[in-house]
């Protein structure tokens, strides 16, 4: 890895950090790099840069590298980091912000993960909660890996974890409203 010309990268990334603050409510200057987020992250094993490192890279202006990172797609949005962060940086919200920004910038590094991400949300929007079988079937078709993860099917079926038909929830309109609101808000984000 080459030397980072910090005076240039920091200057050039002022807008991005301001955008994170104003649009997403994330102030990376708050982060004092304690690493509690990364230490508790259940998907850290699958990331090339941990969430703590990603925040440091944003502080130092390595925005392109952050947005094209696979790590932001490996995040499971479990929010453990946000719950534990002593500075209330909200790392999980930051990761979601970065996923949005990566799409806007056309820097999505992992197409499968992005497809998974989209299908997951679509499933929740359609049914009010996740329908695993439907989502995995679509994912495998779209990614051309028809039997990917199929080996887990029989065991999960035996334990009653998989259902061929989606479950119904009591108030699907509420979920639909959430998605509508998010769309509206995204439309406002320029």
């Amino acid at each position: 890895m080459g030397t980072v010309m910090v005076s240039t990268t920091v200057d050039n990334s002022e807008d991005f950090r301001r955008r994170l603050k104003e649009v997403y409510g994330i102030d990376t200057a708050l982060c004092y790099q304690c690493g509690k987020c990364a230490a508790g992250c259940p998907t850290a094993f699958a990331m090339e840069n941990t969430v703590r490192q990603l925040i440091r890279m944003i502080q130092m202006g390595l925005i392109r590298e952050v947005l094209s990172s696979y790590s932001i797609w490996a995040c499971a949005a479990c929010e453990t980091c946000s719950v534990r962060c002593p500075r209330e940086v909200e790392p999980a919200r930051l990761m979601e912000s970065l996923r949005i920004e990566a799409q806007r910038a056309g820097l999505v590094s992992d197409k499968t993960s992005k497809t998974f991400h989209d299908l997951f949300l679509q499933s929740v929007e359609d049914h009010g909660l996740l329908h695993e079988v439907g989502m995995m079937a679509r994912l495998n078709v779209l990614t051309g890996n028809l039997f990917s993860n199929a080996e887990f099917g029989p065991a999960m079926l035996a334990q009653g974890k998989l259902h061929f038909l989606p479950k119904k929830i009591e108030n699907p309109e509420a979920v639909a409203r959430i998605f509508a609101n998010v769309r509206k808000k995204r439309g406002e984000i320029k």
Partner: protein
Amino acid sequence: MKRIGVFVCHCGSNIAHTVDCKQVADEAAAMPGVVHAQEYKYMCSEPGQVLIQEAVKEHNLDGYVVTACSPRMHETTFRKCAGRCGLNPYMVEQVNIREHCSWVHADKEAGTEKAIDLMRMGVAKVLKNEPLKAATIPMTKRALVIGAGIAGIQAALDIADNGFPVTLLDREHSIGGRMAQIDKTFPTLDCSACILTPKMVEVAQHPNVELMTYAEVESVGGFIGSFDVTIRKKARYVDTKRCTGCGACIQKCPSKVPSEFEMEMGPRKSIYVPFPQAVPNKPVIDAPHCRYLQTGKCGICKKICPTDAIRFDDQDEVVTERFGTIVVATGYQQFDISAYEEYGGGRIPDVITGMHLERLLNASGPTSGKIKRPSDGKEPKNIVFIKCVGSRDEAKNRPYCSKTCCMYVAKQATLLKEKLPASKSYIFYMDVRTGGKNYEEFYRRTQVDYDGHYIRGRVSKIFQVGDRLIVRGDDSLLGRPVEIEADLVVLAAGMDPQHDARELARTLGIAYDAHGWYTEAHPKLKPVETQTGGIFLAGACQGPKDIPDSVAQGSAAAVKASALLTKTELTGEPMIAQCNEAMCSGCGLCVTICPYKAITRQPKQERIHGKMRERMVSTINSGLCQGCGACTVACPSSAMNMGGFSDEQIMAEVDALCQR
């Protein structure tokens, strides 16, 4: 033979668990000289002490041994107990059979055997004990404070407010010290001069305070209660009684010299006051730079002075004055950055130190508070701070943390952002240490609200490219090398002891550490005392300190000094060296070995074979002797003895141990 009592303490089960106390008492009772021996659960308790006192009366004891805990715990208790029943307190020996015996052994039989040995040594010693009496020392009710920075000013003010006369001495010609040079103070951003100058004026006008500026301590004799201090008052060439401080001389003086106060970034005249709010606000002439004093031509100041205050024939004056106590508050000096070649060694004009930036930030500084870099006067955009320059660097023999730099850098970065909103500060640090009330919060604001970019790592190199400086370091959080194009680099130079701190310490007879910081008597429990009675420490001369700590220590030292000054006489320590003049050969070995300068060689007249002869013998100053015993070991003729630890007593102990 003396009548001795032995009292064996169980200390609950602390001793009794591992030592058969009854057996110790029985063995004691069988020893020659011992007329009474008994054991008890807690000798230090009130009933325990009553038991001792009754035994002393009943058996008419001349002295006693208590076998118990360490004398560090209860020696005073048992000595006072003896005093209450009419015995000389020094006819008591405490033998440690707890820390030295029961606590470190498991085998009861062996423990008991050792306790008996220790007891026998105690008995053998106490048989040779002599009553000791402490001498009294007169107290001169006057204090000297050396160094008139904020710590010294505070100490002087507090001593004066306690009602005692105090002389506040400084080698510079204004009081104020380093704090006068500083622009603003963390974490409140008060203007340093605005909070310092009222104190300077207050101390100068206090009826109990005598200011003695432009003066240096040459030698210190005497001891606690009566220090004879020789002071050199340097020639000012200005009669301070006549001078009104009008400043006409300063205006007209034709010779300009780089100002030390402005870190040589601005000029001063040869006749000058260091800064506008100086106290006393009367100029002195810097002789090596004065045209008249060097060449005999000029003398404009003398011609223009409306009160005829210029004295070209002024001479240094040396006075000796007596003080009862001394507070040392000589402060620090900034680390010399020339040791860091990789940062330009002080040769790159735009690589400056923290104190330089203080002067650049200050409204009365060389740039009137405008931030202009030294090389071309341009306003800097990218500013790099490098912390731990001359701190936490073993290779530079500065392993210690200078404590203030983390906060002054945060403060300077904040002030720079306020003055130059378009600028950006990059701060290389190793750790950020902000222990202090509201310090961490201030540092966080620097990062979050004032755009301070902190980078964890030490800079390896600075080099010039065109009119910019390339700073190369490593961001250890990012895990990558980084470079910054900077316009100005500020080295957060740490604190060094004053260059002549060791010399003054030797003059005063106080201790200093490997770096030259003065050593307190105890790192926790005696933080302002020195090992030398009557001399106290305040401020950064003892180790790096910020303003609040220095002020607190100044007040603490003042209380200690005042407590002495309230006394008319002091009781000395009787366990000090004694010289048997009949045996002293006058070789003087003890004089050179004594760390407290307590021994002098003095002539003694004596009649030998019918003729009066004079020979030299050692004399001990009971006020200075701290009872360390170095002289007794060094003395080749066994003339030196410690009260309470005579050679005879120690030999008796050794004999007792060997005779079993």
